[in-house]
C-alpha cells in the first residue's frame, strides 16, 4: 500500500519540478536575450539629454566648470534631478513633477533664460501617464514660455487642466521655478532678488526707528513719464547715477520722499519739503543727481482716499511743465504745461493749460473731451479756489484721472507761490 502511494506521488512531483524548471529556464533565456538587446539599444542619460536639447535648444553648449547646487532639490511640487548650464547663461533644469495620472510623475527639462523667463521645456520621461501623447507636440515651446519664474509665478500657477498629466507638467515647471528662487547662486544670477525690498529695508534703516511705523509706498518712477517719453527715473538721473527707486514715506499727513540710486552700494537721499532730511554714506551734495532731485521737486496731495503726486520738471518764466505721477491705481501720467501769472494780490493764477495725455486710464473720445473740459474749467484757478472749481467740474467715473490733472495744476500753483514768497 505504502509502495503504491509512493509510486503515485512521484509523477506529480516530477511534473511540478519540470514545470518550475521550464518556467525558470524560459525566464533565464528571456533575461539573457534582454540583456544582449540592452547592450545595443539602451539609451543613456547623456543621449536622452542631447535628444531633448536637439528638440528644444540646439544652441546648448555646456558651461565650463559649472557645478549644480542641488541643496534645494526637493520642491513642494516635485524634485530637481539635475541642473545644467549653457555658456550663454541658460539654465536647463531636469525637474520631476508630482500628482499626475494615478499619482504618477512627469520629468521635464525646463530651460530658464538669463533674464529668469522660461525659454521652453521638453518631456524627458514619465510614469503611469497613459495620455502623455495628448500633450501637444509644440506645448514645450508655448506653455508658460516667457513667464518670469518669480514668487508670483510659483504662487499663482494652479493646474486648471484637462488631463492629470498636465498637472504633473505644471508641477515640474513649478519645481524648476522654486529651485531658481531658493538656490542662492541661481537666484543671484537670474536677478530674482527682491531689489525693491532690499532698497526699502535700506531706506528704513537710514531713517531709523522714528519712521518705523510709517508707510513706505513705492512710486512708479520707471514707467511714469514726465514728458510723454522720458521716465521720472530718467529725468532725475544723470550719466553717473541712475535713480532706481522712489518711496513715499508717510504717516498722518507727514510726508517725505526717499530717493534710491547707485548700482552696487545703494545711495539714499530722503527729502522733505524740498530739503534734504537725511542721506546715506557716499552721497555728496555736489552729486548731479542730488541737484536734480532738489530741482525737480515732487509734490504730494491727498484727495479723499487717493494720494496724488506731481513733479515739476521745468519752470521757466512762469511756464511749469508738470507731470501728475500716480493717483490710486492709475499707472501712468498726465503731463501738463501750466502757465501761471501773478494775480492782483501777487498769488499765482492759472492763465493757460496745455494737456498732453499719456494713456493713463482715459479712453480716447468722449472721456478725452471731458479731460479737456476740466482743464479749461481750471483756467483762472488759484490755490484758494481750486477746490471749488475742481469740485464743480470733476469728471464722474474718472475721478482718479481728474485728480491727476488737479494735482499737476496745484503743484504748479504751489511752486509759483513759493517762488514769489522767496523773491519777496
Amino acid at each position, binding site marked *: 500500500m505504502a509502495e503504491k502511494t509512493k509510486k503515485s506521488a512521484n509523477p506529480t512531483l516530477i*511534473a511540478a519540478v*519540470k*514545470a*518550475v524548471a*521550464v*518556467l525558470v529556464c*524560459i*525566464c533565464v533565456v*528571456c533575461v539573457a*536575450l*534582454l540583456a544582449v*538587446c*540592452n547592450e545595443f*539599444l*539602451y*539609451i543613456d542619460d547623456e543621449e536622452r539629454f542631447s*535628444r531633448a536639447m536637439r528638440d528644444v535648444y540646439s544652441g546648448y553648449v555646456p558651461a565650463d566648470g559649472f557645478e549644480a547646487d542641488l541643496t534645494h532639490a526637493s520642491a513642494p511640487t516635485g524634485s530637481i534631478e539635475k541642473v545644467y548650464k549653457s555658456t550663454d547663461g541658460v539654465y536647463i533644469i531636469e525637474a520631476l513633477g508630482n500628482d499626475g495620472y494615478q499619482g504618477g510623475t512627469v520629468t521635464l527639462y525646463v530651460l530658464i533664460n538669463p533674464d529668469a523667463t522660461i525659454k521652453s521645456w521638453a*518631456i524627458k520621461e*514619465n510614469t*503611469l*501617464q*497613459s*495620455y*502623455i*501623447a495628448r500633450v501637444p507636440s509644440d506645448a514645450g515651446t508655448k506653455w508658460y514660455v516667457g513667464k518670469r519664474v518669480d514668487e508670483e509665478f510659483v504662487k499663482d500657477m494652479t493646474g486648471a487642466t484637462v488631463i492629470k498629466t498636465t498637472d504633473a507638467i505644471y508641477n515640474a515647471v513649478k519645481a524648476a521655478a522654486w529651485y531658481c528662487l531658493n538656490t542662492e547662486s541661481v537666484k543671484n544670477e537670474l536677478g530674482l532678488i527682491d531689489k525693491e525690498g532690499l532698497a526699502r529695508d535700506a531706506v528704513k534703516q537710514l531713517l531709523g526707528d522714528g519712521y518705523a511705523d510709517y508707510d513706505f509706498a513705492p512710486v512708479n518712477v520707471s514707467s511714469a513719464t514726465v514728458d510723454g517719453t522720458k521716465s521720472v527715473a530718467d529725468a532725475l538721473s544723470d550719466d553717473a547715477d541712475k535713480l532706481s527707486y522712489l518711496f513715499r514715506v508717510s504717516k498722518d499727513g507727514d510726508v517725505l520722499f526717499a530717493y534710491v540710486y547707485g548700482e552696487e552700494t545703494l545711495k539714499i537721499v530722503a527729502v522733505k519739503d524740498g530739503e534734504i532730511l537725511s542721506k546715506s554714506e557716499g552721497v555728496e551734495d555736489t552729486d548731479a543727481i542730488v541737484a536734480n532731485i532738489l530741482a525737480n521737486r515732487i509734490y504730494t496731495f491727498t484727495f479723499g482716499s487717493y494720494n496724488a503726486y506731481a513733479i515739476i520738471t521745468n519752470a521757466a518764466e512762469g511756464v511749469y511743465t508738470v507731470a501728475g505721477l500716480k493717483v490710486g491705481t492709475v499707472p501712468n501720467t498726465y503731463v501738463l504745461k501750466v502757465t501761471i501769472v501773478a494775480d492782483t494780490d501777487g498769488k499765482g493764477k492759472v492763465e493757460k493749460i496745455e494737456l498732453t495725455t499719456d494713456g493713463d486710464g482715459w479712453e480716447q473720445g468722449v472721456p478725452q473731451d471731458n479731460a479737456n473740459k476740466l482743464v479749461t474749467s481750471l483756467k483762472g484757478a488759484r490755490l484758494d479756489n481750486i477746490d471749488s472749481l475742481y469740485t464743480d467740474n470733476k469728471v464722474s467715473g474718472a475721478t482718479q484721472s481728474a485728480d491727476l490733472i488737479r494735482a499737476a495744476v496745484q503743484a504748479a500753483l504751489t511752486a509759483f507761490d513759493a517762488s514769489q514768497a522767496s523773491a519777496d
Partner: protein
Amino acid sequence: MKLKRFKEIALDGTVRQNPTLRLVLGTCPTLAVTGMGAISCLGMGAAVIFVLVFSNLIISLLRNVIPDKVRIPCFIMIIATFVTIVSMFMEAYMEKLFATLGIFLDLIVVNCIILGRAESFASHNPVLDSVCDGLFMGIGFTLSLTLMGIVREILGKGALFGVQLWNFKIAFFAEKAGAFLTYALFIAIFNVCYNAVERKLKHKAARNAVAIEREAEAAASTEAKEA
C-alpha cells in the same frame, strides 16, 4: 507547408478571423491608437506583427516542452520579452513614434490577440504555420487599425499621415466617443460585406455542386443507356 494551408492561414488572419473586426480583440489599442493618426497605427501594427511572429515562433518551438499547467506564465514571459525588445528598439531608433505610442506599446503584453494566438494556435501547430499565423494576424490587425486611423485622422483632424489636407474637421471623431462610433461602423460595414461575399460564395459553391451532381447524373444515365 502546402499552398492551400498557407492560403487558409492568410485568409483567416486578414479576413475570416480578422482580430479587430471579426474577433473584436485588442480593442484598447484600437480605440486609443487610431486617434493618434495613421502613422501611429502603422507603428503599432508593425510592433504587434513583430511580437506576434516571434512569440508564435518560440511558443510553437517549445509547444512540446512547456507543461500545460505553466503555459500561461511562460507565454506571458515570452511575449513580454519581445514587447520589451520592440519597445527598446523604437525608443532607440524611432523616438517620436515611441513617445506618441507611449504606454500602449508596453500594453501589447496584455493584448488579447497575442495571448489568444499563442494559446489557440501556436501551442498546437507547427512552427511555420504559427509564424504565418502571427504574420497574417498582425497584418489583419495593422490593416484595420490603419484604415480606422486614416478615417479618424481625415474626419477628426483634416489630415492624412500627418499632412494637413484642409481646415475642415469634426473634432468628435478625434475624441473617445468618435473612436467607438468609428469602430462600430467599421465592424458593421466589414461584417455586412463579409457576410454578403460569404453568401455569394456559398451560393456559387452550391450551384457548382448541383451542376456537378447533374453532370454526374447525366453521365451515369448516358452510361446506363449505352449499356
